[in-house]
């Protein structure tokens, strides 16, 4: 059965008057002006952080000064997560520009494209920045993906996201660093609804227990205790500089290409094959969701492209490297029939498995305090501790 992945056609659906999130986006609410709650959430974040204003820049510079001061006697004063992608590569450049002494950190889920590895190497070797990595046993990585595939949830590759967070903490922990810089920009990426990707350590352990076949030895999971250790005990802060200042992804990319011979890989998150498969095939085919609306909506919101142009792009099918589907099946050992059978299983969500969600909700006041102190991202507080499904 040759499945044809279509783009998303928004005609007939209510679409936000500012961005392009439509009524099928989980937890969406439209106000009287037809503007969605995600746009409002972003407005509020921009106000809070002073994005692109002198106030925001001043706030960021104060944080940078603090980072320098606290890291004075250490080998590195901050950790920057790198993936080979635009945002993280650019974050290393900016960190040096600001006079910081970063340690780059990478979680290798063993599905990287050669382009991603090359990009990391080109940028770090020219800038002379050291790299910390955690590489999972490739067989274990595959076992976890298989487990999530069989669990029939949209969070196919959430393990990588959590492992990255844990890896950054471990890098910080190893060298006594108190600050992690992340290249996330809510202006260019938006806030992705919780329904599209959920992750926590208990969720991964539960799914793996149910569907995994080999012990989890090299996967850097983050159980609740470990999470609290990093955040409350070690007090490692997460800073997202791009929340404070203006950021043009196109300009960043052009700079990287010129300075380092950095290569584009075709789209957000496509530098890693499992993430690419997740976004370009799995989600559209099984859940009818297409995560490109995050960046497209963000671009429309910021006025980088018109809403109409964004909607038009969204209607086209997502780009997928040819033979990615074959690679997925072959590497994970799925014959065609078995693959189709699992794809056709009834859809489930994280709510069908044991997770920390209820605990996060109960501890909402604590996480508010932690978010204000930059110990957890504000977006984590907004999404994970709220009882509403957003």
């Amino acid at each position, binding site marked *: 059965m040759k499945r044809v992945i279509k783009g998303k056609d928004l005609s007939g659906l209510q679409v936000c008057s500012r961005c392009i999130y439509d009524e099928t986006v989980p937890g969406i609410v439209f106000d009287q002006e037809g503007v969605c709650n995600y746009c409002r959430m972003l407005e509020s974040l921009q106000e809070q952080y002073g994005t692109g204003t002198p106030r925001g820049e001043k706030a960021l510079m104060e944080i940078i000064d603090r980072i320098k001061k606290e890291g004075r006697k250490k080998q590195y004063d901050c950790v920057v997560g790198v993936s080979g992608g635009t945002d993280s590569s650019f974050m290393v450049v900016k960190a040096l520009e600001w006079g910081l002494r970063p340690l780059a950190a*990478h979680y290798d889920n063993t599905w990287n494209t050669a382009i991603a590895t090359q990009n990391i190497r080109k940028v770090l070797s020219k800038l002379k920045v050291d*790299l910390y990595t955690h590489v999972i046993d*490739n067989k274990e990585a595959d076992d976890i993906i298989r487990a999530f595939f069989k669990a029939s949830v949209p969070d196919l590759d959430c393990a990588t996201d959590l492992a990255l967070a844990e890896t950054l903490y471990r890098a910080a922990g190893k060298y006594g660093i108190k600050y992690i810089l992340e290249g996330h920009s809510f202006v260019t990426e938006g806030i992705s609804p919780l329904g599209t990707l959920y992750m926590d350590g208990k969720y991964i352990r539960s799914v793996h227990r149910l569907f995994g076949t080999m012990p989890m030895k090299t996967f850097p999971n983050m159980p609740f205790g470990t999470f609290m250790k990093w955040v409350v005990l070690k007090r490692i802060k997460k800073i997202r500089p791009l929340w404070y200042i203006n950021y043009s992804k196109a300009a960043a990319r052009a700079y990287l290409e010129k300075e380092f011979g950095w290569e584009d890989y075709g789209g957000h998150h496509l530098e890693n094959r499992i993430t690419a498969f997740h976004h370009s095939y799995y989600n559209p085919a099984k859940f009818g969701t297409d995560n490109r609306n995050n960046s497209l909506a963000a671009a429309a919101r910021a006025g980088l492209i018109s809403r109409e142009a964004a909607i038009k792009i969204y209607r086209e099918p997502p780009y997928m490297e040819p033979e990615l589907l074959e690679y997925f099946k072959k590497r994970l050992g799925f014959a065609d029939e078995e693959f189709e059978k699992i794809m056709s299983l009834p859809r489930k969500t994280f709510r069908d498995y044991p997770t920390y969600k209820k605990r996060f909700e109960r501890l909402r006041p604590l996480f508010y305090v932690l978010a204000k102190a930059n110990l957890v991202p504000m977006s984590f507080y907004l999404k994970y501790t709220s009882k509403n499904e957003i």
Partner: protein
Amino acid sequence: MLRTRIIPCLLLRGESLVKTVNFRKFGYIGDPLNTCRIFNELEVDELAFLDITASREQRQPNFKILQEITNECFMPLSYGGGIRDLDTAERIFQIGFEKIVVNTASFTNPGIVSQLAQAFGSQSVIVALDVKKNLWGRYQVYSLSGTTNQKRDPVDWAREMEERGAGELLLTSIDREGTWKGFDLHLVRTVADALSIPVIAHGGCGSVADIGSVVHQAHASAVALGSMVVYQQQGMGVLVNFPEREHLQQILSAE
């Protein structure tokens, strides 16, 4: 003019790539095929794969992975690990490898080296010598991934292997492996000078300068790299890489 070969030597443990230090504790490097793709991009001239547990586990090479590797790599490949008979060797060649490496089998069945050389040509048969210093500072040859002391002197054993038809010698210093301290130049030189077949120096390379030393001072004909091509630097993270071609050329042509 044939150029000095610089060969990334990748260690297979089951179906994962790993890197060891002194043949002991290992760290994960990644998926073999993914890594091959990167070496393709880096335009590396030759690759060697060693399955470090095949002989210890008394099992066959993993033919499935080897076939996938040859499908991915567009340069000559060598394979070693668990090769003990001609049929296995033949299968490895048919899969698409250019050379095979034998270590343990050369001790348990010394005749095998001659048989392989006769059947497939000396040029396709590499004998691996893993060497460690004993408490009294004497070099000894080990087999079975460095676990069994064969109590042979490396020069004697190397000469015997050459006589039996080995086309090349992969000389690994267990003491230096994974340490970035540089090659054991004395060891390489004594063996290289005693043989007429090429010696591939392996174990301890920490920089391009080390490559220069082992070629010019220790007379190695080729160099195998381990840690240097899979880690960003000593003590830092995994990042597949290869020295700059111009830098290598500079070091290798200087004398």
